[in-house]
């Protein structure tokens, strides 16, 4: 199965060393965006080239890899990246959050608690939280350096003035260890509380933008807000139709063209484990979700 023409995990050792240096620097300065010489990967930008490079630099032959896309193990992006590392590194793969040592993710943090020794790798499209407020990159770097984050608050102010509440629901800006404002990649703000005080190492890779940043274990991460408009985690108020979970992040699924819909866990591994343990939801139409179960 393993392709022998490539070095272990596709990238050559010098490149991995360079990426590891950037990762180490990122871990040393939580939330700081470290530039790195991003490589062309055999996949298009936007498919997780940054995350793949970080994963490749972290992988060891004994690792067990899990790849998720929007919480699911079985969508195109997750399947192809998992297959990529199966072929180029020959590592064991899993869909179980608990068994994995490295988890590459797009847009979600798994529902199950992460443990020490695990690495969570995020795919990041735009690492700069100030990008759409201040287009000049040298200026945003200076603002980070001098901790001038009034502008980030301007974005939240605009949300409230226009919508009556902070309408940012994903890529919700956070303050890391009371120093750097960071874009947590487009995870739903529902996941933001899980960034803080996490036992696992969290690494963020942006391939096109050539940036790596990190949150080391047990780091304080606070979602930005106003005193009179505090951060709210949000949620649908529904429970999962399949496993009945009320505390997980749910996807809304349209089931027919007559307006029927149902809510299911976005984290498929979490949902399957609950169903295997005997949890039953209020029910789904016959046949729904059976191929996944």
């Amino acid at each position, binding site marked *: 199965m393993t392709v022998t023409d490539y070095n272990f995990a596709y990238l050559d050792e010098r490149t991995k060393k360079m990426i590891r240096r950037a990762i180490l620097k990122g871990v040393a300065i939580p939330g700081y965006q470290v530039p790195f010489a991003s490589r062309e990967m055999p996949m298009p930008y936007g498919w997780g080239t940054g995350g793949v490079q970080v994963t490749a630099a972290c992988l060891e032959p004994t690792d067990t890899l899990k790849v998720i896309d929007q919480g699911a193990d079985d969508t195109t992006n997750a399947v192809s990246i998992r297959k990529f590392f199966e072929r180029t590194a020959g590592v064991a793969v899993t869909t179980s959050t608990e068994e994995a040592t490295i988890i590459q993710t797009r847009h979600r943090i798994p529902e199950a608690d992460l443990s020490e020794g695990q690495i969570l790798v995020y795919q990041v499209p735009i690492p700069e939280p100030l990008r759409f*407020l201040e287009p000049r990159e040298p200026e945003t770097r*200076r603002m980070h350096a*001098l901790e*001038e984050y*009034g*502008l980030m*608050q*301007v974005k939240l*102010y*605009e949300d*409230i*003035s*226009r919508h009556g509440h902070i309408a940012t629901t994903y890529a919700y800006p956070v303050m890391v260890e009371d120093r750097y404002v960071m874009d947590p990649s487009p995870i739903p703000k529902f996941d933001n509380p899980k960034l803080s005080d996490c036992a696992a190492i969290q690494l963020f890779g942006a391939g096109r933008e050539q940036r790596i940043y990190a949150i080391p274990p047990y780091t304080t991460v606070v979602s930005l*807000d*106003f*005193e*009179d*408009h505090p951060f709210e985690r949000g949620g649908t108020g529904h429970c999962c139709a399949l496993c009945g979970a009320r505390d997980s992040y749910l996807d809304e699924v349209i089931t027919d063209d007559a307006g029927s819909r149902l809510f299911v866990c976005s984290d498929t591994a979490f949902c399957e484990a609950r169903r295997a343990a005997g949890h039953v939801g209020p029910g789904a139409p016959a046949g729904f979700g059976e191929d996944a179960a």
Partner: protein
Amino acid sequence: MSGALAVLAVEEPLLEVTGLTKRYGGRIGCTDVAFDLWPGEVLGIVGESGSGKTTLLRCLAGELAPEEGRVDYTGGAGTVDVLAMTEPERRRLMRTEWALVHQNPRDGLRLGVSAGANVGERLMAAGWRHYGRIRETAADWLGRVEIDPTRIDERPTAFSGGMQQRLQIARNLVTGPRLVLMDEPTGGLDVSVQARLLDLIRGLVRDLGLSAIVVTHDLAVVRLLADRLVVMKEGRIVESGLTDQVLDDPQHAYTQLLVSSVLRV
């Protein structure tokens, strides 16, 4: 009475500029410029295009680094040489005790966000984190610069040129600075809008006890606004004095030319 006491209590100038020189390669931007600015005073800097007015202002604002000279500022933290400040200190000064009003409001505003956010940005940069209070203060300031507070959620692009300039002034004054630097504040506005803006600036400067440095080529502007005048030519100060004195009895040949060049209707 209290005003007179306040004047008596002032012993030190707010700003003391000495020997300020900025060269562009072999050419002179401004050279050996020296003046004092006292608390509550408005100083006009006049001169023709290319006389070094804007270079001087940009040196004071920290946008250009002069080769020689000192700019001693006496503010909340005692007397400091602004030119010797580190960048974080200087930027903090520029968003708390100083303010810079650009000639073109588009340089001084964020056009992508609402008027309220434009005014509120300086407050949020100063650490305000209460939405209700920020909005209230922003609405209050819009009213003070004669912008209808119901337009608080509109973007500056929806405003006329005069309104944009007033919005820029509100955005700069909201944190209660001591010193305002203005670069041609009425440039590009038609005369009736100019008159209203000047009236507004004059009122705000008097009410808030601001000190200001106003750079302009328009002598009518300084006649209305400035207590004292500095006339620049080829990067040097050629004459300075009380506004009325300089304009009514110009001593230097260049000032005489400048005053006599004003068109009369």
